[in-house]
């Protein structure tokens, strides 16, 4: 399944393509999932009457009531623990951490409890737990409300970590997360809430661990996930139009499990690869992907694996600084040109 499936399918049948925002796609997934399965409930800060601070859960309390849409104390450890205990007892909880940064507050319950229970118990526990959260910078939310911490999460065996890059993917991946019998963390990007795209009306699932080739190209592979797919697409369009460089953009969609096969296949095809992420460069996914690509496709590479990521500092508040912190289309273009050994304008 690819990001364009919905559009293609609709075009083939001649039907009108229905568009939803990123947030709308998530919200629709929640409604449809909760209608389908009585064991699904959502708990978190402000998820009830307020529908979540960003509106992710808007309207759910009206339809499903306080029993299934639960306002909790501001207590991230207990929120995740609530999900773990309820999951072990047979429910299918969705628990919300308002900001991805709050993962750090709940890390014992996430990494020491949820991730390991099954293994520690000799396989006897099932943990159909979904943790939803909101990551990403670019809103002047400063250092404690903007981080991309996926590298920390996907370092923990037992967790699945999902970073959707479009409304279509967000809905399908959310469905997969909730139906999965493992603890999953799905990270919405805060700057994508209003982004619109085609989203099928029915409930559909995008399998976790299966990436998507967003754009075909022959000159260089760009691995990106979350909002960086959109920025990379802008960069690719410009490079194609202005310099005839054809980027292949591959989106793993889930960073744990990681679709290494897709990434390696693309690297073998283009012989050059750059990884783009919002998280800081040091110890980020780019390092892991670079390592895996050199293990699997060393002889195919014509250049070192490039990494385009945030610098090694906390995220600044001021737009004047933050604008230079998060990778954007311009920085991605420059990084791609560098990997291609082409002159970088203004460098």
């Amino acid at each position, binding site marked *: 399944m690819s990001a364009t499936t919905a559009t293609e399918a609709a075009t083939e049948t001649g039907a009108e393509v229905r568009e939803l925002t990123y947030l709308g796609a998530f919200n629709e997934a929640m409604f449809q999932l909760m209608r389908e399965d009585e064991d699904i*409930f959502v*708990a978190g800060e402000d998820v009830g009457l307020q529908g979540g601070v960003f509106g992710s859960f808007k309207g759910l309390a009206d339809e499903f009531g306080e*029993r*299934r849409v*639960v306002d*909790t*104390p501001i*207590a*991230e*450890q*207990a*929120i*995740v*623990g*609530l*999900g*773990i*205990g*309820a*999951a*072990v*007892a*047979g*429910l299918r*909880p969705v628990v919300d951490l308002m900001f991805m940064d709050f993962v750090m507050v709940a890390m*014992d*319950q996430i990494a*020491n*409890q949820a991730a390991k*229970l*099954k*293994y*520690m*118990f*000799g*396989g*006897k*526990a*099932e*943990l159909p737990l979904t943790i939803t959260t909101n990551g990403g910078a670019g809103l002047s939310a400063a250092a404690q409300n903007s981080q991309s911490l996926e590298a920390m999460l996907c370092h923990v*065996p*037992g967790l*699945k970590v999902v970073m959707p890059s479009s409304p279509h993917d967000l809905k399908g991946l959310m469905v997969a997360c909730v*139906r*999965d*019998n*493992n603890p999953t963390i799905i990270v919405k990007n805060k700057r994508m809430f209003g982004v619109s795209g085609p989203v099928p009306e029915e409930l559909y699932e995008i399998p*976790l661990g299966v990436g998507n080739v967003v754009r075909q190209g022959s000159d260089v592979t760009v691995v990106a996930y979350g909002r960086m797919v959109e920025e990379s697409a802008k960069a690719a369009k410009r490079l194609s139009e202005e310099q005839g460089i054809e980027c292949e953009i591959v989106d793993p969609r889930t960073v744990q499990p990681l679709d290494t096969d897709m990434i390696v296949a693309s690297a073998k095809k283009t012989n050059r690869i750059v990884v783009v992420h919002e998280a800081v460069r040091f110890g980020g996914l780019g390092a892991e992907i670079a390592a895996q690509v050199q293990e699997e496709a060393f002889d195919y590479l014509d250049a070192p694996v490039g990494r385009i990521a945030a610098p090694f500092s906390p995220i600044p508040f001021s737009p004047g600084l933050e604008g230079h912190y998060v990778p954007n289309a311009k920085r991605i273009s420059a990084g791609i040109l560098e990997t291609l050994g082409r002159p970088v304008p203004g460098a």
Partner: protein
Amino acid sequence: MEPSVEVLKDLHHRMLRIRLFEEAAGKLFEGNKMPGFLHLYVGQEAVASGVCVAMRDDDQVSSTHRGHGHLVAKGGDLSKMMAELMGKADGYCNGKGGSMHICDLDLNMLGANGIVGGGAPIAVGAGFANKYRGNDTVSVAFFGDGSTNIGAFHEAINMAAALKLPVLFVCENNEYGEYTRRDKVMAINDVVDRAAGYGIPGVIVDGMDAIAVHEAALEGLARARRGEGPTFIEAKTYRYYNHHGVQTLGMKYRTDEEVDEWKKKDCIVAFEKRVTEAGLISAEELAAVRREVEIEVEAAVEFGENSPMPDVSTLLTDVYTEMA
């Protein structure tokens, strides 16, 4: 109200199973036949037994760093437990959990925990599931005095109180958090004082008296089943061995005299004296039960020793549930 003879026998049986299992585990540990860490429950048997006799089979338990006693009291299979403590293939967790993660989900025992305070949020989640389903099942969070100082515990109990969940919080106050006296790390004398801060009732019981614990647990469980929310029980008790391992005496952090004083209040000795003097259970019958448990424990040790080490092929199994 004095419990029935049947209940008394049950309390005694569970306490003995814990005591003899733990003593045997301690010996094996001393003989280097048990890898890793061992946190023995000896001394505190009246708490787990009193509470678990009061519970129904469908009620869940989340346990602690010192969790063997809770599994035994919930009806755990001593052979599978012993094998697990030895890291063997036939253990409860196939050798992947050990002492700190021992569990039996079929008995609704949701696991001991390697993180102090880590279990309370899980019990609250189980309690949430019970309320969600509209059944009258209750979850019990066992925890030590030490865990009430950690954030997760506070978050969990506050949430249970706020959401009025059917959870019974049972504090095993053994006066030490690892190797530090409780009064050095807590500015209150009774842990139960914290209950008021959550707006839930709290009660202190003699944690060396299984009958008293049983009675308090029955009340707390009934209250939860009626939909009236959590109750906090503080059981004053004591662990005979160190935080970890089998050493008892000659330590700096507590005096030998103190250990001896508590041993005079031993929960099993006191219980046996009480029921025989009252003519409720005969000394012969108590001795027969002890022999029976001794045989069960010997068989458990043998089972554990004969069980193979886990096959290396299992190293990477059960990290994830495979999805079709």
